């Protein structure tokens, strides 16, 4: 790999000369350590039940579908019926996520379930979420050994299991939860905020769904 250290010295040196600083500022270091919040819109600063309502409304607005379920044991039936309703094959690729282990897939023997990262042939995936952001109806998904990111993008149909308690007001609330995991300073390789299915407006500004990512985003909002 080419050595770019002289370029580095020159760029940083030029910046310092222009700014009249010698070795960085206390202000900046403090901001990094404290990470203060900026103005957070009032929209999502609500009781939790109302945040859940807002999440559902905002997600629906961007063409995701939201289905409420009493518990994880209802997931196999909901998945099977959702796929059948669209005339899609009863086959799903599921994230090998311990959080989803409690789902009794065997209750639905007609549903073909396999686990792992997405392959080209996979038509539908089921993944968990880390949070749902009410302000925008976005899902927050983290990569990890049990959560391959390809499941979020390759299949035509993406089904996400979101527990009610995972709904938060804003992106800032979601960052607080991530920081709360105790993995201070280390982000997962990929953090996806997903707001509705894939879309494009590149041809004559007309919005069409299903550009490169999933054509359908179905959210199973499960009581817990």
């Amino acid at each position: 790999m080419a050595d770019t250290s002289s370029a580095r010295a020159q760029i940083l040196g030029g910046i310092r000369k222009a700014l009249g600083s010698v070795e960085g500022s206390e202000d900046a270091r403090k901001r990094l350590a404290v990470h203060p919040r900026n103005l957070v819109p009032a929209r999502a600063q609500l009781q939790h039940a109302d945040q859940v309502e807002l999440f559902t409304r905002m997600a629906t607005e961007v063409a995701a579908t939201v289905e409420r379920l009493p518990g994880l044991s209802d997931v196999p039936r909901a998945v099977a019926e959702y796929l059948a309703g669209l005339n899609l094959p009863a086959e799903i690729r599921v994230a090998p996520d311990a959080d989803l282990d409690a789902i009794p897939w065997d209750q639905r023997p007609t549903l073909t379930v396999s686990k792992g990262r997405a392959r080209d042939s996979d038509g539908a995936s089921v993944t968990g979420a880390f949070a749902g952001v009410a302000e925008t109806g976005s899902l927050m998904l983290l990569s990890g050994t049990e959560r391959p990111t390809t499941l979020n993008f390759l299949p035509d149909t993406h089904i996400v299991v979101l527990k009610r308690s995972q709904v938060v007001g804003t992106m800032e609330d979601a960052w607080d939860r991530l920081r709360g995991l105790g993995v201070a300073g280390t982000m997962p390789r990929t953090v996806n905020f997903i707001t509705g299915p894939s879309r494009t407006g590149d041809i004559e500004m007309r919005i069409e769904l299903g550009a490169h990512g999933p054509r359908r985003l179905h959210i199973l909002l499960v009581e817990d």
Partner: protein
Amino acid sequence: MEPTTHAFPENARKALSDERLQKVLAIAPAGFVNRRKQAADRLPEFEALRDQGRDLKNHVLANLDTYLEAFESKVTEQGGHVHWCRTDQEARDAILGICRAANAKTVTKGKSMVSEEIGINDYLEANGLTPIETDLGEYIIQLRHEPPSHIIAPAFHLSKKDVEGTFRQAHTDLPPDRVLDDPKVLIAEARTVLRRKFQQADVGITGANLMIAETGSTVIVTNEGNGDLTQILPRVHVVIASIEKIVPTLEDAALVLRLLARSATGQEASAYTTFSTGPRRPGDLDGPEEFHVVLLDNGRSALLGTEFQEVLRCIRCGACMNHCPVYGAVGGHAYGWVYPGPIGSVIQPALLGVKEAGHLPNASTFCGRCEAVCPMRIPLPKMMRHWREKEFEEGLQPAAMRKGLGLWAWFARRPALYHAATRMAIRALGALGRGKGRFAALPLAQGWTKHRDMPAPEGKTFQQMWAEQKGKR
């Protein structure tokens, strides 16, 4: 890409007489304008967020060295690499070096204006690699060998008929009787073709809407999902980003993101906002094995401490061009390089020099709409004025114009003489034009009267009327 910015007047004339382009321009910008307005109106805090966005970026620029170093150390800590590049050439070489080390043949690309700025596609091709744009708009214009005409909608200047023609020419396995008259079908066609490319690629290049100093993350904001497939499928992920894209923390990213999507497309949030940090972790089932950030200066740090520093607050949303009457009349290609519209009229002289790009800051009505909608409140008209001053200082305008300005300045510094001269001129013109109320031709003003009539003055100067009315108010 070789700039044709010096030829702006000819480019603009061509654009104005291009009927196909004018048809597109008559409809497309209004869509962006309406959607942005709806999104802004829906968020009561939008204006206050703009203030905070401006203040945040001012803080970042005042501490740019600290944040860049913090970012670099975080990227390195997590197994990634930062490549510092002073110039476009250094950035091209850094990327080519990464591709060579990876034995790459095919390179997929997410949409990135900085990658257009450094002209990476031509360079990779010249060195035997195959770069493939995967954003639908970028893919279409790559097939047509055209530059983007808008920073967030690269194929802004094309109709679906144009796209159909392009696909029929490029996708040779398409049956001739396949109906391709619907955007849906065109999108499905591109999706199928590009899926194969995503799988073949050895290296994926994306841009970055943001870099986060606190975590060493890069952020892309997209709607299609191509930027994600570009970075999770190949073995190597390269991010090309310019130094001013940095923000301190995840909270600060949230602030900028609230402004970005609304200002760009009028969305509450884009479909995919992705934070990428380092390469895949041990045990991960997918994701890139290598993570490189190519950090480009290319003249930006030289703007710090100058009257152009504030332009570095730009988050590349495109709102200024969507609202610009000049962009709306001539489209993006007339600007002759990578960044069109008001932002281009300020950045291109900085990156290309006033000699090449001096026409752009002059191609403005100074109506102020760009500044009125800029999420970062960049005083674009003021900066265009600064460029005009520079152009004058460097003696780049035509002799007649400089002489005229010199004459005017001589008069303007002598108010008594100036007022007397204008009073006389106005009275004479007023008397001459009384019959028709306008002039179809005037000596010394053909530049104006060639395109429109000059209204005849009413007989008094502004100064006279002001003096007369002052007593009454």
